């Protein structure tokens, strides 16, 4: 359990830092572009492309954090009415499902980026299309790991909850 918690914390810290950095760069670029365009009637040619790729990177990192904080869009009107113990089992169950789907998406992303993209295709500066695209398989892999961690946590909590209620009953 402790190793899981440590892994979780390390991953989350790294992703958070990357996310904050990316947003800062994205915002600076977007503002600079507007200022350049509207005041000086010029612009950085690759600025718009870079900004759009940054949105995707930010999106995947945000989605990873959404996973770790249980903030994905979901239908919770039914689970809301469940008893705490049952709800934990339901959560573990849906986490498992989500992890499996993320695994397939990671594989599909891997095929798309690593096998499908040309190493030499350059987006801007020296960044290759392949490097920029890596966020897709990496992002889904991170989410898969996070869903698995959550599933284990939920199961442990559910078991603990059950033994506690048993103690209270007896």
């Amino acid at each position, binding site marked *: 359990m402790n190793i899981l918690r440590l892994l979780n914390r390390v991953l989350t810290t790294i992703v*958070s830092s990357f*996310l*904050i950095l990316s*947003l800062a760069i*994205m*915002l600076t670029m*977007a*503002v600079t*572009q*507007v200022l350049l*365009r*509207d005041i000086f009637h010029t612009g950085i040619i690759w600025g*718009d492309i870079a*900004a*759009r*790729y940054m*949105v*995707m990177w*930010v*999106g*995947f*990192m*945000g*989605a*990873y*954090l*959404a*996973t770790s*904080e249980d*903030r*994905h*869009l*979901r*239908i*919770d*009107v*039914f*689970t809301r009415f469940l008893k705490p113990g049952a709800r934990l089992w*339901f*959560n573990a*169950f*849906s986490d498992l*499902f*989500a992890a499996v*789907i*993320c695994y*397939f*998406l990671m*594989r*599909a*992303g891997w*095929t*798309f*980026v690593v096998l*499908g993209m040309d190493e030499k295709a350059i987006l801007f500066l020296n960044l290759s299309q392949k490097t920029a*695209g890596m966020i*897709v398989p990496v992002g889904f892999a991170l989410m898969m790991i996070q869903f698995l961690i959550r599933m284990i946590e939920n199961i442990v909590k559910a078991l603990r909850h059950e033994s506690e209620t048993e103690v209270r009953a007896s």
Partner: protein
Amino acid sequence: MTIWLLILLLTLFALAGAPLFTIIAAIGLLAFTAAGMDTSALIIELYRLVDMPALIAVPLFTFAGFILANSQAPKRMLNLAQSLFGWMPGGLAIVALLSTAIFTAFSGASGVTIIALGGLIYPALIQHKYPEKFALGLVTTSGSLGLLFPPSLPIILYSIIAAVNIDKLFMAGLIPGILLIIILSLYGIRTGIVHKVPRIPFTWKGVYFALKDAAWEAPLPVVVIGGIYGGIFTATEAAAVTAGYVLIVEVFIQRELKFFSDLPRVIRESMILVGAILMMLGSALGVTNYLIDEQIPMKMFALISQYVSSKVIFLIILNLFILIMNMVEIFSAIIIVVPLIVPVAMQYGIDPVHLGIIFLLNLEIGYMTPPLGLNLFLSSLRFGKPLPEVYRTVLPFFVLLVIVLLLITYIPQLSLLFVSSGGTP
């Protein structure tokens, strides 16, 4: 047979609380596999996200909204509105409507309005002798007011998904949005007069101090909303300017958010919402494309048109359908439903821009529709009132909103007056 089994299974997973993007992605994975294609086709569609120039408006406006919500700006805005409109009969109600509308437009309608502004407005209304029922209903309703004004996140999302020009959609929302506020204001004025609510005297001094206090934020709605309506800048440019400006004002000038402790938290919080939305969007793109290739919208139209021949009846059914969808989950409703209904509605001769306004207004109403609307839960939690009581208090507001919805649905000119022609961007 297997298809129905799979649909049943996925529905069960969705109801068990699995993230909706995984459900949609699962549909995509299954559909592409069944069609004999490699699943990486799903990722090709997801990757189209980087080809959408308007997409950057989503993280930037969301970030700006979260910064504002975490500062004292809502309070200053409320004071300003009160000094300007408090003297009217029902003045405070109008103040509440205006300030929540602007705040919701900027904060992306994720329910923050009730938490951030409702907590200030509700006690103020009670203190000024408005009936409690009215106050609770008003605050609950106003949680999603302003959805039709730029730069609200749902409008941006709709424009991205329906491939409608975002600036046109912003223009189209102007009259319906104002109409909505006027009608609710009239109800507020009536309540003010009937219950003999004391008025707040107007003083130039009050306006001066409130304006001075909010000097940094007051120009923001004017510049952003006016700039977009006036065609001075595009929504994407407005997003960049707003995010940069708000960051500088609240962190460096007003100093209400600390650079090292608050800012990282606000970035995280806002980008979690953005990430959740982008995952939905990305996985839905693949499925949508598959459905369109299979001509599902056309088949839907063929089926529906057997029973429904008139545009009016189609719109009534559509309204009911969207209202139910929106109660379930708002952003998902846009992402999943819009690509399917836009082609069908176009067959009935409905302008996609007009449809967008209808859809968004439905969404606004969906937020407060008993029993599952999000605002009702937020309000019940925030003000410690039982849900059935909240249900009763929103009823008059609900009726008014539905009347506006009917007006906007059947008088397309209200939405299309300032829009040259709808359709492609």
